[in-house]
Every structure is written in structure tokens, then in C-alpha cells.
């Protein structure tokens, strides 16, 4: 048989053609790589640390201690539209109130006399409805039950609410309304480190593991930002829950730090050599706020139930003052969680229940350094800077102090006094600085030459004061930034250390005078903070370093950097 004359390319030719086409496709894919496989939002984006200050509109009038919001919550809260979509039996009147495993819920357990709806509960007897406490530990499940109208209430920390709110508000009926703070985490959350990490600044370049989108993430990144460490310079490893983060830290020696919960944060340093607690919410005791939110449609239809819930929880706090009642509540809680009463009792130190007076401070006092507004804005700032949220929700679209104000007018809980404020004995800088600080925040206030007045006005060419001006217009915002940190670390001691530049070094200026000036400036910062935000002056110690410690040892004449005040947070002295 005769061979067919070959038509078309040879085998080699086919191969070359094939490779050529393949190359073209690969080239096109490479050219359009950002379209085909974009790298995502740059997580490692540099955070503009100065943005920290801009969260708050500067206010120069300063110096008041209590200033209550004047508006009515309804003016700012988003209106509820449509037909209410929660499940409700008008005869039985049972509020579905999911909670997680957390000692902060002890007051409501005490008020309810256990987890199941009961006619003997404070809620039933005093306020005419029943409460069904359900253990829903997974926040996502709790959120879904809330969105579906299965539960009327959503448990959470304020930082979780910041993340949940935008999506929940897509339906005005399931928009969360926060009516009450239940507790501050007070030792329940913490950071454990391995090796030679002495303060937050040492975490630079290290690996940290924590549960993403949880209070842990807020905790660590807030600290990093406050310590001037770009979060992108730290290696973040994420887990789904805090338990897994603790397990990962124990299992993987290459992880330098871990953010988790009690009891793990206390057990691990006991069991794993070379690990220690860096900081916990025992010091940062006004950082993580546990609250509950109600569905907007439910709150609108049943304001009396909301008021009863708020009041009943305060009643529960009263009830817990009695030791026998407290024991009973531990027992009920243990039953509800399927734990032993001892295990529940061991959690007692994890949280500080916030009573009526403390709630008033949190919701209503615009000058409280750790109030709802500041906490919300701080969380929003941290998450936005991390690129985690786009269009943040305003605090007053979620916060509803209506029920609190009514109880205030009725005077029902006037006997509950603020117990959250730590008291401080005077101490010296030398004494507290013997240990390394948890973190140091460097701030810059532009002082007028030779002046120690933080609110120094501008001067004209002839040196005369120009009224209603400020030499450093951003001073209020700078102080706000410090106040937030100091407020979050309510129980910690704070050193305010002033530094001057060295421009007059060797020009006849006496070292003592420079030291005195830097001390005066630090003192001025302390006074301004203590006055405006009502801090205990004994919380602060003041030190002036003069020009002895340049900001950057490699560049000692960078005078702009040298003129600074450093605010260091130290663990409280042994209680």
C-alpha cells in the first residue's frame, strides 16, 4: 500500500505549535494574573498610627467629668420596617435568651433561677414574662438563631457586635439593639508568650496564634497598635476558636504567643515550661465588654420586656450579694452548662459584673474613657485598619440607653454604686519601672518652647497670645488616644515619661533645667488626663528624662522624634 503523502506539520512541528499556544496562554494568564487570581486586599497594609486619634472629633473645651448624652436613642437608631419576624407566644411570653459558657451570665442565671423558663423567676414575678436561657456557645449559631427570629437576644462582646452588625442590619428587624452591659472581661482573656518576650513591642517579627474575628483578635491588635507595632510586622496565625489557639500554641513550639481564654491562659504557664502570661483582662479590665442585644422588632413591640430584662439582670446582681444565693446560682449554672459547681466557681474571677451605676457610666457618660462610644469606635478603628470591615456602623445605630434612663428616673437601682474603679496608692516611677511594661505608647505633643502647658495657645510674632487657638491643635485628640488606652487598662499603673530634644545640648543649658521641663511636661499630660477623664491621679507616675534618652539611638539628633512623651502601662503591683 502506498503511503499517503504527508499533509500538515510533522510531529516536531505539532509539538512546537502546541508549546507555542501553551506559552501564549501562560503569557496571557501571567499578564492578567491580577484579574485571574488577585492577591486580595493587602492585609499587611501599613496602618497610619495617627488615624488612631482621628476617631474622635477633637474637643478643646476639656475638663468636665460627667457629661450625659442629650439625644433620644430613637432619633439615631435605624427605624424598624415591615412585619415583625420573631417567634412569640403572647400567652406564654418566653424570651429566648442564648448564652455562652461565661461566668458573666451568673446574674441572669440567678434572676431566672436556672436556665429553663420558670414562674418563680424574678422575671416572671416582677416583670411578667419568662426567660429561657439556652446554651449556644458557637457565636455563629447564636447569630443565625437571632437572625432567624428563633431567639430574641444575641449574646456577644462589643467587638463581636461591630462585626455582626453590618450584616444583621440588612434587615431592619434583626438590627441589634444593645441595651445593657453584663460585664467586663476581667481576667477571662489573656495573652501567653514563650521565651524572652517581655512586652508587646517584642512581638515584632514573632508568630501569634488566635481565633479570628473574636475578642482575641481585637485584644492583640489593639495592643499592637497602641504599642506602635504595625500588625503587619507580626505573623498572625488564625484558628476558629480560642481553645484551638491554645492547643496550637502548646503543640507548636514555633508559635511565640497565643491569645486565649481562661482557664487555658493560666494552665499553660503552669504546664508548659518557658511560657508566661504577658497580659490579661485582669489588667486591661475595661477592654472587652460583654453585652446583649435584642432584635429591633422585638424591642419595638415589647419595650416593657426589654426594661424587665435589664432590671431583672440588675436584680440578679443584688441577689448574688447573698452568699447562699450565690452558691445556688453556681449550682444552676453548672447544671445548665453540664459542668461541676466547682468548675463554675473557678470561673468567678474571669469577669466583673457591671451594675446599674457602671452601666450608666458605660452607656450615658460621654466622658468615660472606656464607655460604649469609645469602645465601639476603638474596635471599629482596629478592625478597619486591619482591612476587616468596610462600612462601619455608627455606635448610636446600635446603642440604646432608653431602658437604662427609665430605670434611672424611677431610681430603682440607685443603691448600686460603681465598683469597677480601682484605687491606687501613690507609687514612684523607680519602683514600677523595675519590671518591664506591658506596652509603651509614644505620643507627641507639640509644646511651645519652654512651656509645659498642653493647651498652650498660639503666639503671634511679638510673642503675644492669640486667644482661642492652640499651639498644638491636635492635642485633644492625642490625649484622647492615651485616655482610651489608660481607660482600657483601668487596673494597671501608668508611667508618663517626658523627653526633650537635645538641640540646646552644650549651649549653656543646664541639664537639671531640661529634666525639670520634661518632668513638668509629663506632669501636665497626667493632669490633663486625670481632669478630663476623671482618672485617679495616683494611677500615674511621672518622670522627666531630659535629653538623656534619644528616641532612636542610631539617630540621636532627630529632634522631632526626640520631643515626645512615652506612656507606659505596667501591671498593677501585687495585690
Amino acid at each position, binding site marked *: 500500500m502506498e503511503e499517503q503523502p504527508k499533509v500538515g506539520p510533522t510531529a516536531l512541528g505539532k509539538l512546537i505549535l502546541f508549546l507555542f499556544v501553551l506559552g501564549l496562554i501562560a503569557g496571557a494568564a501571567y499578564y492578567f494574573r491580577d484579574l485571574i487570581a488577585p492577591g486580595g486586599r493587602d492585609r499587611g497594609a501599613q496602618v497610619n498610627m495617627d488615624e488612631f486619634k482621628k476617631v474622635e472629633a477633637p474637643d478643646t473645651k476639656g475638663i468636665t467629668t460627667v457629661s450625659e448624652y442629650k439625644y433620644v436613642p430613637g432619633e439615631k437608631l435605624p427605624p424598624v420596617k415591615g412585619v415583625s419576624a420573631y417567634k412569640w407566644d403572647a400567652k406564654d411570653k418566653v424570651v429566648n435568651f442564648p448564652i455562652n459558657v461565661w461566668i458573666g451570665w451568673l446574674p441572669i442565671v440567678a434572676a431566672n433561677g436556672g436556665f429553663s423558663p420558670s414562674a418563680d423567676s424574678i422575671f416572671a414575678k416582677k416583670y411578667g414574662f419568662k426567660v429561657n436561657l439556652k446554651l449556644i456557645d458557637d457565636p*455563629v449559631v447564636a447569630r443565625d438563631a437571632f437572625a432567624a427570629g428563633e431567639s430574641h437576644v444575641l449574646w456577644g462582646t462589643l467587638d463581636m457586635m461591630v462585626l455582626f452588625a453590618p450584616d444583621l442590619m440588612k434587615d431592619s428587624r434583626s438590627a441589634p439593639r444593645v441595651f445593657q452591659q453584663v460585664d467586663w472581661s476581667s481576667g477571662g482573656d489573656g495573652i501567653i508568650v514563650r521565651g524572652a518576650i517581655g512586652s508587646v513591642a517584642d512581638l515584632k517579627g514573632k508568630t501569634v*496564634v488566635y481565633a479570628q474575628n473574636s475578642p482575641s483578635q481585637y485584644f492583640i491588635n489593639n495592643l499592637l497598635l497602641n504599642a506602635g507595632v504595625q500588625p503587619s510586622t507580626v505573623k498572625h496565625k488564625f*484558628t476558629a476558636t480560642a481553645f484551638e489557639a491554645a492547643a496550637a500554641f502548646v503543640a507548636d513550639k514555633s508559635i511565640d504567643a497565643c491569645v486565649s481564654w481562661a482557664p487555658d491562659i493560666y494552665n499553660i504557664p503552669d504546664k508548659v515550661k518557658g511560657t508566661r502570661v504577658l497580659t490579661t483582662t485582669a489588667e486591661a479590665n475595661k477592654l472587652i465588654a460583654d453585652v446583649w442585644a435584642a432584635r429591633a422588632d422585638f424591642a419595638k413591640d415589647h419595650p416593657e420586656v426589654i426594661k424587665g430584662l435589664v432590671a431583672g439582670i440588675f436584680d440578679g446582681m443584688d441577689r448574688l450579694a447573698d452568699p447562699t444565693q450565690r452558691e445556688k446560682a453556681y449550682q444552676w449554672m453548672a447544671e445548665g452548662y453540664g459542668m461541676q459547681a466547682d468548675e463554675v466557681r473557678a470561673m468567678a474571677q474571669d469577669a466583673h459584673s457591671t451594675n446599674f451605676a457602671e452601666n450608666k457610666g458605660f452607656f450615658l457618660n460621654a466622658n468615660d474613657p472606656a464607655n460604649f462610644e469609645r469602645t465601639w469606635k476603638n474596635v471599629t478603628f482596629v478592625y478597619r485598619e486591619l482591612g476587616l470591615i468596610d462600612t462601619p456602623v455608627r455606635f448610636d445605630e446600635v446603642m440604646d440607653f432608653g431602658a437604662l434612663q427609665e430605670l434611672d428616673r424611677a431610681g430603682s437601682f440607685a443603691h448600686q454604686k460603681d465598683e469597677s474603679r480601682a484605687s491606687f496608692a501613690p507609687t514612684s516611677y523607680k519602683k514600677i519601672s523595675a519590671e518591664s511594661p506591658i506596652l509603651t505608647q509614644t505620643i507627641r505633643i507639640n509644646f511651645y518652647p519652654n512651656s509645659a502647658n498642653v493647651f498652650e495657645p498660639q503666639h503671634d510674632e511679638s510673642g503675644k497670645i492669640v486667644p482661642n487657638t492652640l499651639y498644638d491643635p491636635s492635642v485633644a485628640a492625642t490625649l484622647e488616644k492615651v485616655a482610651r488606652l489608660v481607660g482600657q487598662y483601668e487596673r494597671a499603673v501608668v508611667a508618663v515619661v517626658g523627653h526633650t530634644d537635645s538641640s540646646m545640648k552644650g549651649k549653656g543649658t543646664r541639664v537639671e533645667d531640661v529634666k525639670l521641663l520634661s518632668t513638668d511636661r509629663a506632669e501636665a499630660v497626667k493632669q490633663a488626663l486625670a481632669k478630663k477623664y476623671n482618672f485617679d491621679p495616683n494611677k500615674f507616675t511621672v518622670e522627666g528624662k531630659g535629653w538623656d534618652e534619644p528616641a532612636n539611638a542610631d539617630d540621636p539628633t532627630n529632634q522631632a522624634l526626640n520631643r515626645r512623651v512615652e506612656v507606659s502601662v505596667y501591671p498593677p503591683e501585687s495585690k
Partner: protein
Amino acid sequence: MTEAAPAGGPASQKAGPPASAHTGFLRIREELPAWKGWLLGLLPVLALLGLWVVVTTGAAEERVISPTILPSPAEVVASFPLLWFDRAVTRNLAVSFTRVVEGFALGVALSFPLGVLMGAFTKVKAAFTPLTVFGAYLPIPTLVPLTLSLFGTGELQKVMFLALAFSIYLVPLFVAAVDAVDDTYLKTAYTLGATRGQAVSRVLLPISWPDIWQAMRLGFGVGWSYILLAEMVDVGRGLGGIIITSQRRGPREHIYLVLVIIVVVAFLTDKLWAVVGRFLFPYREAKR
């Protein structure tokens, strides 16, 4: 005997099913043109989509299902650019896919020798059957903390977890594949003087290849349900991370989008397995 034979007698019943089996809408083992098959397959999908549209139409407050639970198809589609660009879904998909492939390769490397040995040798089978039965009833998620403490939190843990999960799934299937080889083939081989090794390598294995291939195809598909478990730890990269993040932080739309993407990818890889299988074992197709 012809079809036209009078009905009634026992002979005609033997000849073929009653006429009702050949007429009407539903006919047993009916020949169906490909396009009709596709069309029929499309109908339930469209119906489901239609239902989705119906329950998610209107303003947020007027819908049957609130957008905070189930976003509308349009909203899901509209969130696609965000998923594609900001959340880098393709890169995360590549990460997840690589993990599945690596875990699968390792899982097969573990389970294939064991499965074949168990299928071939009764004593091996007796020794390992309790373990495989135990594995079959083991809730796979409980392996996560175990692998965590053994392999740390990095890539190794994910791949090892997947490998374990794959092995547990694949071993019984491999055993069954080798088991299914008819004794006749073995007897013939022995008659021809085959040694023990030859009986395994020239008879058992070649005959069970198509079934083994089928088992791997099924197993690979199942892997996609394990990947989300594997990515619960050291979340961040991978599709599991996107789902966990979207649950906490929104948008909800991305949860559904990622699920669709997983289904599409799993479907495509399954088709690839089928095509390669047809190429490798053409006689398999003819048998049916």
C-alpha cells in the same frame, strides 16, 4: 417469537415485559438522547433557583426568608467581585485544591497497599478489619485536635488530616475492589502455574483496577467535604477560611458563593476522573 404474539399465554410473558413498561412517560431503562438527559437534569436545578428567587424577592423586611439568613441570587452574584478581588478566591481555591491533592496522594499511598493486601490475603484482612470498621464509624472531626497535637498547625497538619480521612474512606473500597475479582481468574492462573506474587500482580490487580479507579474517584469527591474541617485550624488561606470569616464578619453571600465554587470544582474534577477512567479502561464502558 415476535412482539405481535397474542397476549395471555405464559410464553408471551416470558418474551418481554407487558406493554405498559414501554409506553407512557416513565419507561424502565429507556434510551434517552443526551440532550434530553441534560434537560431533565437542569429542571430540578432551575426549580430550586426559582424557589430561591421567590423566597428572597422584595425589600429586606418583606421577604419570606430574611437576607440576614439567605441573600437573594442577585445579591450573591453581586458580591462575586468582592470575593474574587478582595478575598482572592482563586488563590484560596488553589491552596485548598493543592491540600486536597496532597492529602489524597498521601492517603492513597497509605491505603492502596493496605487495601490490596487485605483484599488478597485473608489473614491480613482479619488483622486489619477491626481497625477499618472502627475507622468507618469514627466521626472524622474528632481527628482535628489529634492531628493538631501530632503535626502542629501548619500545612503538614492539614495534609495529614486529609490523608487520614482519605485512607479511612478508601481502604474498605480498595478491599472490596480486590475482593470482587472472580475466583475463576485465580484458578485459571494457578492452573497456568502462577506464583503467589504473579496472582496478585497479574490477576487481582489488573482486574480490579477499574474498581480501584472508581473508588479513588468517589474518595476524591468526598475530600471536598473534609477540606473545610482541615481548614478550621490556621485559618487564613483556603476556602474554609473564607467561609469561617464570612460567617463571622459577612457578607453571608460569600458562604453560598464558596459552596457553589466547591460544587463546581468538585463536579469538574469528577468529570476529569471519568474521562481519564474511560481512556484507561475503555473495556469498562463496553461492559455495560
